Each structure stands twice: as C-alpha cells, then as structure tokens.
C-alpha cells in the first residue's frame, strides 16, 4: 500500500515582528528576541547577536512569557487598610500614591534625611537609584550585595581590581584547565554553560569544588566534594604546594603584582606592615638592575622579589618574603588540612600538580605585540591556560572574604590573570580600589549627600562613623564591625531599624527585595519586627513603602505599594556606570524597552522615582525653574549626564563629529538606536589591548577614549592588601580612629593583609558535637529566587524541595525516600521531607533555595506544594550568632565585609513521623491579586 501522510505547512509564519530586548528572569541579562503576534508576546528565544548569551537561553528566560502574564502581577497602587502583614489593601490612584509618598518623605528631607532608609534589592539600576538617594541626602542606601556575594566582589577589587561574573571571566577560548568553586547559578549562568560547552568540545579538564555534585559539578571531570567553609584552607594548601615547588610565575609576580613591594618589618613602628613609599606616595620596590629602591612603575626597572632594604633603621622586605614565610608553614601542607577539608592528601597534591603542569608546561603564546606601563615592549602574549570561577558558595561564609582573596592570590601566583587562557576582566573592570570612590555618609537637611554611598575604604579614616564614633548608616556598613562592607548590609536594615540601633528611622523604602521571606534570615523574627508596635500602638518602623511587580510575601508588610511593570513593559539601562554586560573583548551596555504596554495601572519604578524626585524637589531631578527634569526613566537614560559627555548609556552619543560611541552629548535618538541594534551596544577592544589590561597601555588609552577612565591608571595587583593592614594597626592602638575594645582582637585576627583561613564563625558559637552537619542551599537552574514560583511552567519543575541527605546520614537515621526529618540549628527548627543523594559531602545536607512559599502569596492557591511541602532554611539562620557568654551578640556575617554568612549553618537531624506540611507553618496572607486560573491553554494565535 502506498505510504501517504498529511501535507504539512512546513513554513508557517513565526511571528508578526521580533522585538529584541534584555531578559530579567534572573540577574544574567541575556539578550532576547520577543516574537510578537497580534501585539502580544508569543515566544521568547535568545538573541544570537548578543554578547552575553549569543542566542542561547535558559529555562527561566524561555519561561518569561509566563512571568510576564503571571496572575501575581500587581495591578494598581495599594494603600494598606488592614494591619501590617494581613495583606489587606485598597487600590488607589497614582496621584494619591505619589502624594502620600511625598507627604511622608518631604518632612524627612527637610529635617533628617537619614530617617529614610532606601534599599533596593535585585536592582539593575543602581547607578540611578543611588543617584536618587544621594540627592535625597540619606546615607542609608544600598542594594542586595551585602547578603549576596560582596565577599567575592570586594576581595576581587581589593586584590586585583575585579572578581568574576560582571567583573571577569575565564578565557573560555584558550583555557585548558578550569576550576570551579561553589557557584550561584544566576550569576553568569548562560555564559558559564557556554564556556563549559567550549571546554568540553575541546576536551579541556574541569575540576568542580563543591560539597554537592550537581549542575556544573556533575559534568566536571573531577569532583572535589569539599566540606563547607574550608575552601580557603584547601586553596592555601594548593598555594603551599605550588610555592614550595617553585611552581609560581616569578616573572609575572615581579612585574605585575606587589610581590616585590617593600614592607616595613619593624614591629614597633606605627607603619609596621605598611609599604615603603616615595614622596609621591608610590610603593617602592628594589630594582634588580641597580639594587636600589624605585617606585614600582619606574620605566625600565626590574622589580626584585629577593632583596631586602634597610631605611631609617627599619628593614623592609618584599611582600614575596612574607608570603613565603606564611604559606610554606607546614600547617598548610596537604597532610595537615586534608581531613578538615574532607579531602585526601593525594587529591590536593594531584590538583596542585595538575594546575602547575597546565599553567607552565602547556603555556600558550599569542603572537601579539604590546607595551606595558613601564614602557617595555613585548613581542607576544604568553598565557597560563588555567582559569577559575567562583561565586556565592565560597563567598557566603564568615571567612568568605579571606577565602575569595586566597583564590584570587592563587590565580595570580600562577600568573593566570589577564593573560591568554586565564581569567580576563570585562570593561570597565579591572578597576583597583584607587579608581573607586570611598563611601560617603555625611547628611544634612535639604542637602544632597556629600558623595556616593558605597565605595572602598583604604583605612580607618574612610569609615562611615559619626563624630561620636557611632555608625552613620542604619545598616552599620563601613564600621569597625565590618569595615570593608562595599555593598552595604541590606540584611541588617530591618533588625537595626526595629532596634533603633544606631538610631531610629521613619520610612523604610524598599524595591525588589523579598525581605519578609527568602531574602531574610530569621523570617519569623523579621516579620515580627516589621509588624511590631510600641507602647503607643504605633509601628516601631513607622512607615514602609515597597515597590515590586508581583504579589510577593513582602507586599503584605508595606503601607504603600508602588506596583512596578514587568520586564517586557519597561525601559531599563544596564550601564557602564554600574556593572554592565561587557565581555573581555568589548565594553557593552544594554537597555530594556517596553515591547508591550502594561494592561494594568502600573508604572516602571524608575519612572516613578523621577516623578517622586521632582515632587520632593531633589536637585538632579528638577529643572532650574523647579519643574520635573526627567519625564520618565527613558528621558533620564537619554539625557542625564554624570559628567560632561558621560551618560548612563555609552552608545550613539553626539560627538563633535556626529554620532559616536563613548564620550558625547546626549542624543535624542539614542534609545531608538539601541532598539535597532538589539538593545545593546558593544565597543570592541583592539587586539593589542585585549590582555594584560591593568598594565597594557593600549588598553589604558582605549579605556580613556571611550570614557571608562579619565586618565590612564595602570596599577599592580595587591597580593598584600595594605588597607586591611591599616585596620590591624588601628586595632594595635595606632592612629586617631580607634576601634571599640571588644573588636580589637577580631580585627587583628581577621583583617590580615595576606589571605588566611579561620573556621567559620558559627563553629565558634555553636557546639560542633551537638550540630555536626552543614546545611546549604543551592539555586536551581530553572528558578530565580522566589520569583520563579509564580511561573506556571517553572513551578512544575521545582514545586517542592526535599532536604537531600548523604548516604551515611540517610542510612544512619533509617530514612527512606518520602520520610520526614526535624532539622534543628542553634536558632530554630524545621520539619521537612528528606531524600537521598550519594554524590554529596558526607557531612552536608542541602536543599533548593527559595522554593517554599508563604500560603496564598504569588497568586498561588492554598494547597500549592510550595506552601505545603516547600520550605526555607532561612528559619534556621539568625542575623546574629548565638550568645557565647561574652555578653555580646556577634553578627552572623563576615567580619571584613559584613556579608551574610548563609552557608555557615550547622544543624542536627532526627527522623520524625511524616507531617502534613513542612514546619514552621506561617498563616496565609490575603492575596491582593486573587488567584490564578485552573487551566492554561496558552496560545496567542488560536
């Protein structure tokens, strides 16, 4: 019988139009093609031309259509009618909402601007929101970095002028050995996957260091199932092996790092441990040609790593001597650390040896001439093809700063930073501490702040302290408790505001941060603080304004809700003034634009802030005659100039000879140009400027030309971080500004200028025998924080989250899949379902992050698995460590940066009878948006 089959239309129309914008389903900022049919969003795919994702797109990105159409979208401004936390609201007009906000905020600005605490969570417009806060005059501004990955970012800046993700990335095209430490999936997710694809395609080796062998670690050729919190010790052991074997890049170290810089070695000197500097303040090195000291950047010198120098009766030794002394110590030998790290001696030795082999025996050379900052011409670019990436996993510990520093130092010792095959920076990075602002906190009525809020301190003089030495900021950032808190401490704001410590505030204004749920430790405590009243029956935190696009848990705890648009309904700007979408070979920025108009009474948050700024008469937001300066965010993006010729977007500016990229006057057609180009602008780096960026004059000149720098500013990497030493000196009693006595020992111990390892602080506060197990969360690749839970497609993949137990623990307690356990920390307990995982560190349990939801939030129905079986570990974690009898409560954060130490958590586990739902159970919240439909048959064109 003849084979007959239906005639198919093999070329059906795909869409009426493709609108190219930028994804916001997580923090990665990929380019997307939004296919439109009949004016509606029909399909979303990756943009092939985009520098970040080059056409690919993750599950979250493809599910954007479900987020954009989510039933949890807020519909209009809301004013609270019931008690805080009830979820009872009335819809009001934008005029009413803005009047209300103006009436609340104007008196604060006129009398005490610090009484506004303005914190923006997963905000991608920080250069705008900080500018607004600066003009308001409050010192209390930051985004969410403090509870995310500030340790990684700050350690990178303090060591080499940048870290990973937005700052830098492995040279995927050349690297031959890639070592990946604990990672946050929403940080650089598609680029890492694409990079792994490149490595796999050419058979390069991947080593995964992670207690949990999932995701990227599952495809790693070798798995290092390390015990949480010991990564720093492991890295220092690798450094020990490499230094001891002389498998370090001495040429690179002498030329491009402060390894040769001379350090004061006199223990009695007030400058003990500080650099020998010349009259210009430049660090001194010994020139091997002359044997004499010279400024590090003197043309023609050959900095020595060997010779010491005696000046004014004090012996000065190169940093390299101090490093050798420290890291040759047998306490870092593999034999000494292996058990503590949960590894074998052979594994550590094998990895050290393999790093050395690939770095030095498989070095690669690109045939490109370049000239360094000392004027020396090099015929080629030689690279050490080993590279690293790490993010939140090693960062979110109380020893995270030093651990991240250790990792950066390891890369530098191998000579693999900014070289072919190594780790490469993305413009505007690298940018050393000296190229960053210092933090500013001086506020006065009706006056803008004296400068940008956030920055990098170089010593005690830069701390944000008031005249009386008390913290200037509500989050106590840049104080002796955490001097290098470069991203602020959003996670401390609610508890400090509630305690009135260091002072009382009036209005807490937050954006895109689910502080009543997964973004806070100690959720029960935080929600109580948000709803707590004083003796008069008034709320202890008098006013809360919150802006979000969706009906999150936090919405119920605000008095006024400013409903934001979805990411497809708004203008946004991912600016070179902030952390843009650059690649190692190009500076790139990007926009979002309204590919569809909102069908609700909602407005983009930044546009609202333009209007609110004008109503409050904030300088920078009003014209000379007092009118509103920026009609909306698009107007601001186009016309704002941070300094002449430099605006939020670098593309298509109006230069003297017409439209140009980089420096130039505002161009009314700029956003149109971006849209036509796929919503981004990439400025490519010339070939001879693509590597050795901190020292390569061609790069420095290019960066000045496009407006990244105002002048060339080459620098050397800080193996030895002098700013930290200044805090140690203060703790030793030197200098005017002195830490409180109770912090002196801790500062001396933890602010070491050379990377160290100390056990996570929680280990010193809880009984390790009683709580022997480490508990972690991981972010699923298909879900971004709590946002993903409203997504009809993604929530089918991750609708609940068991606690995964390693084989030994699972068997010891006699669990079978489907059983439940009580998990107890020093702070609290939860009762949750468990499951077995063999590829897991034997002392570690874990679960997926932020799957659990509060009942009736996010437009989910009551029986939703997220609200029944889903759970958060946050209930087990407190923002303060348990008391240990010294009369003090220590913050559960890194003593250097204040980063929230999520992953220090220690627990114990016991089997319990199966429960109906995960505990603790928090009562439902009235949904301000109702509930979603019972069935979806989604098709724009039926």
């Amino acid at each position, binding site marked *: 019988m003849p084979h007959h089959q239906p005639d198919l239309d093999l070329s059906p129309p795909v869409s009426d139009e493709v609108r190219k914008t930028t994804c916001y389903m997580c923090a990665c900022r990929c380019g997307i093609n939004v296919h439109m049919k009949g004016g509606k969003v029909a399909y979303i795919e990756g943009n092939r031309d985009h520098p970040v994702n080059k056409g690919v797109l993750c599950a979250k990105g493809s599910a954007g259509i479900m987020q954009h159409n989510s039933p949890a979208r807020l519909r209009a401004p809301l004013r609270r009618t019931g008690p805080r936390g009830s979820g009872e609201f009335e819809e009001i007009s934008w005029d009413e909402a803005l009047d209300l906000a103006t009436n609340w905020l104007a008196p604060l600005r006129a009398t005490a601007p610090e009484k506004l605490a303005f914190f923006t969570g997963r905000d991608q417009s920080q250069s705008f929101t900080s500018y607004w806060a600066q003009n308001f005059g409050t010192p209390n501004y930051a985004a969410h970095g403090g509870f995310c990955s500030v340790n990684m970012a700050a350690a990178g800046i303090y060591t080499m002028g940048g870290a990973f993700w937005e700052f830098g990335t492995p040279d995927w095209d050349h690297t031959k050995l890639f070592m990946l430490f604990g990672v946050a999936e929403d940080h650089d997710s598609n680029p890492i996957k694409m990079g792994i694809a490149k490595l796999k395609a050419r058979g390069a080796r991947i080593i995964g260091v992670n207690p949990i062998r999932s995701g990227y670690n599952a495809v790693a050729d070798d798995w290092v199932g390390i015990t949480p919190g010991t990564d720093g010790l492991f890295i220092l052991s690798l450094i020990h092996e490499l230094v001891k074997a*002389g498998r370090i890049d001495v040429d690179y170290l002498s030329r491009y790092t402060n390894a040769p810089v001379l350090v004061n070695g006199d223990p009695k000197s007030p400058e003990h441990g500080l650099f020998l500097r010349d009259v210009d303040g430049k660090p001194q090195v010994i020139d091997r040609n002359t044997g004499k000291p010279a400024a590090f950047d003197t043309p023609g010198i050959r900095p020595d790593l060997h010779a010491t120098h005696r000046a004014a009766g004090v012996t000065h030794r190169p940093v390299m001597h101090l490093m050798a002394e420290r890291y040759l110590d047998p306490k870092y030998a593999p034999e000494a650390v292996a058990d503590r790290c949960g590894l074998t001696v052979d594994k550590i030795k094998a990895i050290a040896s393999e790093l050395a082999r690939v770095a030095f025996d498989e070095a690669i050379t690109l045939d490109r001439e370049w000239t360094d900052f000392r004027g020396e011409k090099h015929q080629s670019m030689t690279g050490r093809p080993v590279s690293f990436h790490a993010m939140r996993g090693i960062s979110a510990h109380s020893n995270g700063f030093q651990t991240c520093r250790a990792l950066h130092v390891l890369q530098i010792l191998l000579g693999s930073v900014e070289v072919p095959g190594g780790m490469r920076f993305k413009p505007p990075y690298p940018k050393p501490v000296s190229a960053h602002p210092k933090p500013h906190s001086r506020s006065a009525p009706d006056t803008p702040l004296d400068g940008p809020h956030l920055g990098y301190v170089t010593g005690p003089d830069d701390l944000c302290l008031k005249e009386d030495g008390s913290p200037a900021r509500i989050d106590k950032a840049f104080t002796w408790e955490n001097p290098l808190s470069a991203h602020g401490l959003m996670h401390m704001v609610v508890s400090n505001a509630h305690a009135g410590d260091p002072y009382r505030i009036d209005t807490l204004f937050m954006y895109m941060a689910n502080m009543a749920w997964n973004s806070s430790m100690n959720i029960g405590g935080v929600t109580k603080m948000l709803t707590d009243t004083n003796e008069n029956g008034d709320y202890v935190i008098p006013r809360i304004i919150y802006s979000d696009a969706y009906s999150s848990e936090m919405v119920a705890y605000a008095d006024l809700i400013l409903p934001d648009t979805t990411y497809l309904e708004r203008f946004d700007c991912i600016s070179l003034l902030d952390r843009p979408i650059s690649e190692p070979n190009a500076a790139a920025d990007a926009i979002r634009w309204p590919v569809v108009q909102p069908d609700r009474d909602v407005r983009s948050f930044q546009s609202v802030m333009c209007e609110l700024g004008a109503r409050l008469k904030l300088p920078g937001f009003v014209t000379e005659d007092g009118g509103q300066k920026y009609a909306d965010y698009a107007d601001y993006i186009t016309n704002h100039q941070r300094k002449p010729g430099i605006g939020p977007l670098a593309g298509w500016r109006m230069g003297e000879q017409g439209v140009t990229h980089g420096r130039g006057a505002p161009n009314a057609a700029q956003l149109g140009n971006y849209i036509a180009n796929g919503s981004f602008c990439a400025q490519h780096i010339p070939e001879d400027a693509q590597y050795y960026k901190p020292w390569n004059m061609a790069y420095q000149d290019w960066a000045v030309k496009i407006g990244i720098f105002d002048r060339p500013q080459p620098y050397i990497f800080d193996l030895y971080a002098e700013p930290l030493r200044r805090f140690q000196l203060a703790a030793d009693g030197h200098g005017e500004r002195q830490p409180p006595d109770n912090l002196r020992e801790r500062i001396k111990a933890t602010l070491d200028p050379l990377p160290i390892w100390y056990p996570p602080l929680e280990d010193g506060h809880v009984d390790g025998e009683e709580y022997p197990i480490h508990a972690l969360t991981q972010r699923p690749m*298909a879900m971004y924080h709590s946002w993903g839970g409203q997504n009809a497609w993604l929530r089918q993949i991750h609708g609940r989250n068991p606690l995964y137990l390693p084989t030994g623990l699972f068997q010891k307690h006699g669990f079978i899949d489907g059983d439940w356990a009580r998990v107890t920390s020093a702070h609290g307990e939860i009762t949750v379902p468990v499951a077995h995982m063999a590829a897991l560190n034997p002392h570690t349990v874990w679960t997926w992050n932020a799957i659990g939801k509060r009942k009736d939030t996010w437009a989910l129905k009551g029986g939703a698995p997220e609200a029944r079986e889903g759970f958060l570990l946050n209930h087990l974690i407190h923002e303060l460590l348990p008391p240990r009898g010294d009369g003090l409560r220590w913050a559960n954060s890194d003593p250097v940066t204040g980063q929230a130490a999520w992953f220090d958590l220690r627990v114990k586990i016991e089997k319990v009878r199966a429960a109906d739902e995960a505990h603790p159970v928090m009562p439902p919240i009235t949904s301000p948006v109702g509930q979603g439909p019972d069935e979806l048959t989604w098709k724009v064109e039926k």
Partner: protein
Amino acid sequence: MTSLPTSTQRKLGLVIDLDTCVGCHACVISCKGWNTENYGAPLSDQRPYGADPSGTFLNRVHSYEVQPESAPAQLVHFPKSCLHCEDAPCVTVCPTGASYKRVEDGIVLVNEADCIGCGLCAWACPYGAREMDAAEGVMKKCTLCVDRIYNENLPEEDRVPACVRTCPAGARHFGDFADPDSHVGQLTAARGGFDLMPEQGTKPVNKYLPPRPRDTLGQTNGLAPFLDPVAQESKGFVAWLDRALAAL
C-alpha cells in the same frame, strides 16, 4: 498511515551529550514555549497555580546517580524526548493512522485531526515520549520542530529544533543520521553514541553520548606526578627566588 515506511530518505534526530548536559531545563521550557504557540494544540497546564500543577511537556530532563565500584557517585542529567525510532512501535499500534513516520526524514508525528486519544501509542513507547494533552484529548509528542527545521520564515541558522537552538551547554545536536559524515553521525561514531533500551528493538534514531570517565586526577594514570619542593622553608625559598629571577 501506521505502516512504517520501509526506509526514509533521511534520518533526522538528536545527539544528546550526557557528558555535557548540566541539567538546566532550558530545552524543556524552550520546547514548551515553541510547541505551545506552534504545531497543533497548545501544551496545556492543569492547575497551573494550584496544588499538583501538571502540564504537557514534550521533553523532560531526568537525573540519575551512578555509583561506580570504587569512586565517588556521579550525577548524570538526562534529557529525554521522542527518539524518532526507525521501528517505532507507537506508529504501528495506532488504530487511526494519526501516528506516522515521515518518509522524507523519519520524523514521527501525530496528525492531531485523526487522533482519537486512545493512548495506545504512549503505551507502546518504552521511553515515555508521548503525553496525552488533558485539555485537548490528543496525543502530543516531539515534532523535532518540523515547523522550524524547514521554515523559510526563519533565518537559515535558526532552522533547528528549539531545544537545540537554546541549549546553553551545547549538549544537543541536530542532524541527519543517514549521512555518516554529518555532524551527528561523526559525533556518534567518535564518542560511542548509544541507544536507549536497545533490547526493545525500536532502533532509536536519537543517540546518547556517554559521560567521559570521571575522577581520574590523583589516580595513577600518567598525569603529572606530585610536585617536588625547591625549598622547605622561607630562607631556602628566597634563595631560590633569586636564582629564578636571575634565570629570566
């Protein structure tokens, strides 16, 4: 027509690289998005915001742990969709002729207008590649994006299945297995591509590439030997530094 063609001109299918798949589910959702908006009825979701949300998906990513005898356990992410078998049992069981295998390229499709929703094809499939849509009452399955791969409204480079286009890790490859010189043919040959459940006799077109050997560092395999010290303490090391710098 439910007789299988005796041969097909091409054998289009996928290579799925288990060595590289990181389990991100990008292919799952990209497929859901494309096939909800395109070929046939939308892929519906029941109780999308309620208890037990349950929708139709044409591609799902499983994960397995494998415990070697004397090495750490491994985790393998395992995407699975229709394998477009040469001897597709789902086609021959169909009573209406709705299920068929295209003679041009071997793609197995369901003509939804002829599908009575009896479910027998899904019974016959050992891989779980077919799912009955609860709203539409017809069988849904991977079409290998037959409405993309020949679609002249798409740029040529986009004429691949949605899952392949979107895969960030490069773990999915599309091509013609009838041509041994094709990318997929060569990958299969070079990396030992294998069939799922070969004993079922379905002759799947799609091939899976096995994970490469893991955890070889630190085992005696001829890689770099452990490092030899140049010095045991800092004084000796500093002297070594001098020599090393002098040698540059």
